[in-house]
Structures are given as C-alpha cells and as structure tokens.
C-alpha cells in the first residue's frame, strides 16, 4: 500500500470523527497528501517514513496554524518549525493536523480551549483530560498511532490516563523546547502519546537529544529506546509511596493501581515502600512557579505585532487592556494574575523564592527515593474522566487532577502513564511510573512489558483504525 493511500485514510478518519470529538483544530489534508506523494518517491530508509502524527497546537509547525487554543492567536501561522517538528519531518513522519488543547496548555480537561471542547471517545459526555486533550483523543480514537503533546504539570500523562493510551513525559532537557510555545519554561516538556510504548519509543528516538537552539536541552547520549523495550524487568525495584494513596483517590482507580502493583510483582519486580515527604506541597509549589513564569511568557501576546488585536482602542494602554481582556480566556487570565502577584515587589520572597526552595526539596525527595528503587509507581490521575462542566467552576478541584503528576515536572524527571484497567463505568485508568533523570529507557521498557502481559483488551466506542 502506498504512503499516500494510507495517509488518505488517516485524513478521512480525522475528518469523519472531528465533528464529534473535535480533537483537531486544523487538518492538513493538502500538506499531508503532498508530503505522502513525495515520500512515495523517496528511496531513503527513514525511521518514521509515512508515519502519520498529530501535533498539539502549541508546537510550531511552519506555515501551519499554531493557535495554542487561544483567541489571541486565532489564525496565527508559525514562521518556523519547532525542533521536534523538523526532526519528525526529516525522519519521514507526516503531520496530519494540529490538535486541540486547553488554552495555552492551562487546564486538565481541554475545556478552556477557545475553539470548543474536545470529547473523550470512551464517553463523549466526558472530558479527555488536558491540557493535551486533542492529542490524546487523536490517538485514543485510532486516527493516528502517536501524537505530540506538551506537559507542564501532567498535561500528557493525565489525558493519556483518561483516554486509555500511553502518555510519556521525558526528562527535562531530553527533548528540545525550541518552538514549543512557552507556558512555564522551567517545567515545560514536549511529551508523546502512543497507542503503545513502542509507538512512543519510535517517536522519542527521532526527537530526543541536544539542540543548539535550546540551551536547556542536555548533551546526554540518546540510547536505543526501541531495542531496550523488551528487556527483562524481573529484579527491577518499584517504589510505592503508600502515603499518597489516601484522600481524594477514587476507589476504582485505587483498586486498579493496587492490582497493577501485584501484576508487576508477578512479573518479577520487587516492590518497596518509599516516602516522598514533600509531595503534598507539589500542587502549591507548581501553581506559584508555573503561573509566575506564565505571566511573563504570555506578555508577548499584546496585540502589537501578531495575533488578535482588540478594536476601538484610543491609546496604547487601552489597546493592551482590551486586547488581553478579550483575547485571553478566564483560566489564562486567572493564572496571569496569580503569577503577576507572586512576582510582585514585596511578595517575591514569600512566594516565588520560597516555592523554588520547596521545589528543591521535592527534587531531593526523588533522589533519596531512587536510592531504594528504579521507578516509582502511583496512579496517574486520582479519578477517571469526569463529566464536561463538572469541575469548570471549581478551579481548585480541577488543579488537584494533577496531584500525582506535577512532582515529576518539578523534579525534572521522566514519567509515563500506562493503561491498567477500566472503572466500573467502563472508563480507562492509568498507572504512572516515574524514573531517574535520563532513565526513559527503563520507563518504556517497564511499560512495554506490562502492556504485553496485561493488555487493556478494550477499545473506546468511538474508534477507527
């Protein structure tokens, strides 16, 4: 079968499901088919030749829209390719569209997108999680095998868990952030969704590694993620922080995760108790650091040079006020205000500076814990997919969706969410593994073995492919 006919099918699927699921903000039919034709003529042996991929709409793709799910970037087309996108293109992958997301990646439900909510293919009355909801749904609904998302506090792992697929966050510095529109620079990562860990490993192999355009990307050797997928996991030590399995955790989720611990034990892994004494401060620390950085990163959206500009202003100042008032949604404005406040003169030490200190303690917690184990296992999300609208008026309860995931961003360590069962309502549940700095191979290996031995064996009601 030609690459073109495969891609034709993918595009058709995307177009067919999008009115229901709204996982794509743009579908690049023409681009994708042209690229497929080119690749059909290409004799080179490329790692991802003809591999269809969806990309979250906050990752720059030259000539394609990159809106960050925000009115303020409505119709904005990127002028250049992010490093991740250009590496994918070089490896022969075909970008088929840009995925829906919470506005500027701020949210855990995809409900803050300025371009409509994205629906969970397991139950269209429910959210897919966020902020990379569209990328997750594109994979969960079977349109593509893999997609790029982004993570600042769990925005790949949490929707992966809610959509029953694999979601992966690398070590900070493993994948270049060049071209990822910044939310909170010290926490942001490009992440990968896959139907399997192998899909993730394939994509990661192509996009990982030092990039001279991102000085926070690390010059650390990139291992062969694919060949290490099937390593023996017997003897691996899995740390379990029991103290985190308490309040707010759904019974179904708890049971499924407990079962997965047992399953790992059956596979020969050793289970040990670990403590993460400062994990309880993760959400608080996260919402100080992330909002502070966001308040600065989003300052460039001022209506002066590109994007949305409000009409009818009579002065520069009024133009700033109106543009940002009308251009940003409520959650984004809430976070800009929070971040501006915590950086303000007189409050910096009490909030931002203190949060950085606690962040270091959290990082140290993991270093200590990893002396006793190879990976740490928890639920990915305390709940399964919730109903659309259920938490939209309660930001705090929404923020708690990330309670198991934010710490990995704060500690800059890699993490992965793997499907580990269904709730009584038939909704997917994910287990999370986090690992040592640069130990992505270990995570992919442990996830892959689990998937093979304990597959979910269920597909969402809406599924093509």
């Amino acid at each position, binding site marked *: 079968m030609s690459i073109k006919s495969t891609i034709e099918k993918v595009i058709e699927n995307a177009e067919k499901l999008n009115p229901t699921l709204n996982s794509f903000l743009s579908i690049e039919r023409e681009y994708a088919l042209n690229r497929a034709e080119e690749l059909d003529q290409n004799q080179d042996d490329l790692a991802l030749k003809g591999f269809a991929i969806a990309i979250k709409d906050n*990752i720059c793709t030259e000539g394609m829209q990159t809106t960050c799910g925000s009115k303020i970037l409505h119709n904005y087309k*990127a002028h250049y390719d992010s490093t991740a996108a250009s590496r994918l293109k070089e490896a022969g992958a075909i970008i088929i569209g840009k995925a829906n997301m919470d506005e500027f990646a701020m949210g855990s439900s995809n409900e803050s997108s300025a371009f409509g909510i994205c629906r969970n293919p397991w139950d269209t009355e429910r959210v897919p999680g966020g902020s990379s909801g569209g990328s997750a749904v594109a994979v969960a609904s079977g349109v593509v095998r893999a997609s790029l998302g982004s993570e600042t506090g769990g925005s790949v792992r949490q929707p992966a868990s809610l959509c029953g697929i694999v979601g992966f966050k690398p070590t900070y510095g493993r994948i270049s*952030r*060049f071209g990822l*529109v910044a939310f909170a620079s010290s926490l942001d990562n490009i992440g990968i969704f896959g139907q399997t860990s192998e899909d993730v490993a394939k994509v990661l192999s192509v996009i990982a590694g030092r990039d001279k355009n991102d*000085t*926070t990307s690390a010059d650390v050797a990139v291992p062969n993620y694919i060949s290490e997928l099937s390593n023996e996991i017997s003897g691996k030590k899995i740390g379990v922080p029991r103290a985190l399995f308490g309040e707010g955790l759904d019974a179904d989720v708890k049971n499924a995760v407990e079962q997965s611990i047992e399953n790992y034990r059956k596979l020969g892994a050793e289970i040990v108790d670990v403590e993460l004494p400062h994990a309880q401060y993760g959400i608080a620390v996260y919402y100080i650091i992330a909002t502070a950085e966001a308040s600065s990163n989003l300052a*460039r959206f001022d209506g002066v040079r590109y994007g949305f500009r409000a009409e009818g202003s009579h002065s*520069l100042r009024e133009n700033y006020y109106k543009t940002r008032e009308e251009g940003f949604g409520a959650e984004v404005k809430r976070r800009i205000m929070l971040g501006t406040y915590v*950086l303000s003169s007189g409050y910096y030490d009490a909030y931002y500076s203190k949060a950085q200190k606690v962040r270091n303690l959290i990082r140290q917690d993991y270093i200590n814990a990893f002396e006793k184990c190879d990976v740490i296992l928890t639920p990915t999300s305390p709940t399964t997919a919730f109903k659309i609208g259920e938490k939209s008026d309660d930001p705090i309860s929404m923020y708690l969706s990330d309670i198991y995931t934010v710490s990995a961003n704060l500690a800059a360590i890699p993490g992965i969410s793997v499907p580990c069962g269904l709730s009584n309502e038939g909704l997917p549940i994910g287990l999370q593994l986090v690992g040592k700095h640069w130990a992505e191979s270990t995570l992919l290996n442990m996830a892959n073995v689990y998937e093979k031995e304990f597959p979910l064996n269920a597909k969402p009601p809406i599924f093509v492919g």
Partner: protein
Amino acid sequence: MKEGWEVIIGMEIHAQLATETKIFCGCATSFGHDPNTNTCPVCLGLPGALPVLNEKVVELGAKAALALGLEVQETSIFSRKNYFYPDLPKGYQISQYDKPFSANGILTIMTAERDEHGRAKEFKPMQIRIERMHLEEDAGKNVHEGLPDVDKFSYIDLNRAGTPLGEIVTKADFRSSWQAYDYVNHVRRALQWVGASDADMEKGNLRCEANVSVRKIGETGFRNKVELKNLNSVRFMQKAIEYEIERQIEAHESGEGVNQETRLWDEKNNKTRVMRSKEDAHDYRYFPEPDLQPLVVSSEFIAKIKSEMPELPDAMRDRFMQEYGLSFADASQLVLEKDLAAFYETTAKASGNPRVSANFILSELIRELNNAGKTATESPLSAENLAELIKTLDAGKINNNQAKEVLVEMFNSGKTADAVIKEKGFEQISDTSAIEKIVDEIIANNENQVTAYRGGNEKLFGFFVGQVMKASQGKANPKVVNEILKSKL
C-alpha cells in the same frame, strides 16, 4: 553651586558591545538596514523561540569589565525584567539582576573643575566605585517620524532589538557635573581602547543616565533624587546636571520640594522636564530567566582575556611620563586615543627623541589630522617618516621652523622627509670646507667691519653670521658657521 549645598550623582551607562551579531540570536547588529530586516523569531519574540547566548558577548563583556576595574563573577544569572512597551517584543527584557556579570569595581579617573570658558583647572585623580556591569539586550525603536500617517500610527523597527549592552552602574560618588563628565569620557575611551564598544554617543551606542540629588552640606541622609535621561552627548549631560542642581536647590529652598521622578534634557530649551513620576514607576517583577542556564565564566577564560588585553591608557600615560620624560599633560593627551598613542610610541622609538616626537605630534600632526578630519591610523604621514624628519632635525640638517614646514608638506603629499627637504632646498650645509670658503670671502669683502670687530665691537659678530647665511641662501648650519667665524676672526 549655591554655597552650603552639595550635589550627589550616580551614573548609569549603557554601552553597546561591539559584536557582529545580537546577544541571543544570529542576527546582524549593523545599522542602516531597512526596518525589521535584521530580525528572526528570537529577536522578534515570536511564540516558541528561545534565546541562545552569543559567546562573543561574554568575551567583550569581560574586556569591558576588566578595563573598568570590575571583577568578573564566576557565576552570573540572566533575569527577566518585565514591562510592556511596543519596542519590547517579548514583554520582558533579558537582563541581569541580583547576580550580575561583574561587580565591585574601583576605577581611578582624572578629573578637573572647569572655569567659565570650560577650560580645565588642575586634573587630579579620583576613585569611583563601580557597583556592577551587567549584560542585557537592547529594545527596538518606536518610530514616530518620516512615515505615512504618523499622526495616526506608530511604527516599530526591531533591528536594534537584541543588541548586546553592558550596563555600568556606579555608586553615588560624584560631587560635581564635571566629575561625571570626566567619568563618562574615561569609560568611553576605556571601552573603545579594549575594543569592547564603539562607545559613540551620537550613534547611540553609548547612552548615559544620571541620578542627581542635592543636600545641605553636613546632612548624612539623601533627599529625593531625579533620574536624568535623553543625554545625547557628554556636554549635554554636564549641562543637564548643572541645570538640575540649580533647579533642585531652588525647589528645596522655596519649600516646594523635589519629586522623585525621571526627567528628560530638552536641548532646545536648555532645561529638564518631567518624563514620568514615581507613581508611574514600574514593578519589573524580576525573576531568573528559565530559558538560559546560569552563565559560568572560568578563571582560565578570564586569564586568557587578561593576557589579550592591551595596556590600558592610564598605565600607558604613567609609562610615557617615566620612560620618555613627558609631562603629565602631554602624556595624557597622547593617550586620549589608542591609535595616537601607538603612533607616538613608534615615532619616539624610531626617532630616538621622545620629547621632540611628542611636541611634533601634539602641536603639528594633530592640527593637520584635525584639519583633514583624519585619525592617527589614517595619517598620510607615517610614524616612521615622521621619525626620519625628527632625526634630520636632530642632526642639524634643517632648523625647527623648516622641520615644521616639511612636516606639513609630508602630510599633504605623503613623501619622505628627504624628498621634501630636497624639493624645498632646505638641506643645511654642514660641510666645514664649503662654509670656510664662504667665510673667507665675507672676511675679504668686509675689511672695515673686520677691523672694527677685532678692535672690540663684538656686536658685529651677528653681522658676519647674517652675511654667511645670506651667501649660503640660509642653508649653512648656524652652529658650524659660528665656530668657523670665531676661529677665523
């Protein structure tokens, strides 16, 4: 200044570092291009773009810091300075805040008060504490002139956005406008000298701001200070400070008081006017730039930069005084420009006469250079050729006035000293036998005067000298003429 009052001034200088490309991207820093052409996603602040530090900035920054007596810090941190302005594409400026690139500088400048004609009285050394020099990016420019519908629109040119700057901040150590004036000139020359900056105020690649307050002599606290901006030359800066001193003293004495504010120098009306008051002051919400790693500068790197540094002007001035016996004034003037100092030293060494070299350069050559609008490196008269001229003068082949005339011609024509001297027929006759012949003729033809001279009228000696010079068409070496006349008479 009114008696009983003193002024307290602190200086901030922004110097553009002379790199070919911008501080965080590869765009050119050169001027004069079409608006917004020297730009890229990074300096345009496009979504997703990230800064990458230009290593050349670190090198020039280190040279600038060392030239100003600052210590380069092993680790410095870039911070974001957040504020909204159309010429600031990211909505924040990448600068440095609590961990600057360099700190703890002590700089000795030479400074003098001036009389009413602006002439310097005695220059004396003064120590200035330089708090820091940090690295940062420049903003772009808002353009309000020369484009269509400027009454309705403002235009933005981001070619300058991302140009590297060193911001040099002193303690409030200055007690007069002339001290500030001499300081800025010192900094300007030091930066040019080590090649860290073109430091040209007219082109805007050196900009200064003065923080000025006054207080009664004897007071220990500080009164409200005013930040002066738009100081487009050192002279304007000095005038603005003087104006501000008078204004503030009057305001305090009248009971009206001084507001803490930013004022601009209005060069048309020779006064300062309010730009923004303290109430409008920004809260810049500085925090460490998460897109850049801390800047670590190794001691090896600093050692390497130090080894590459040229001798600094003050050290050179002192050496000229010691080695070549020059006066403080002459030596200071020679080190005003690096090229001139090098020209001088080449001339002094090649001619073997450092003092005459200094005189010729400072009085004759500089005049010719100024008239021709040229710098020492562009001089058509080379240091080697000037040295030859001085040697010819020292050998007594021409006299001082002739030498000056020859210098002008050498400068204009680019010819050697010998060639010009020949053309002008200035070659002196020092050949004793030729002069003896002339002397014999003069003695033979002026019997009366010879008799009178020998009878005791010694004043007539001058007459004989004049006759000999006349007969030789002025070319006879006067020293030799004297000797021969004396013995023959």
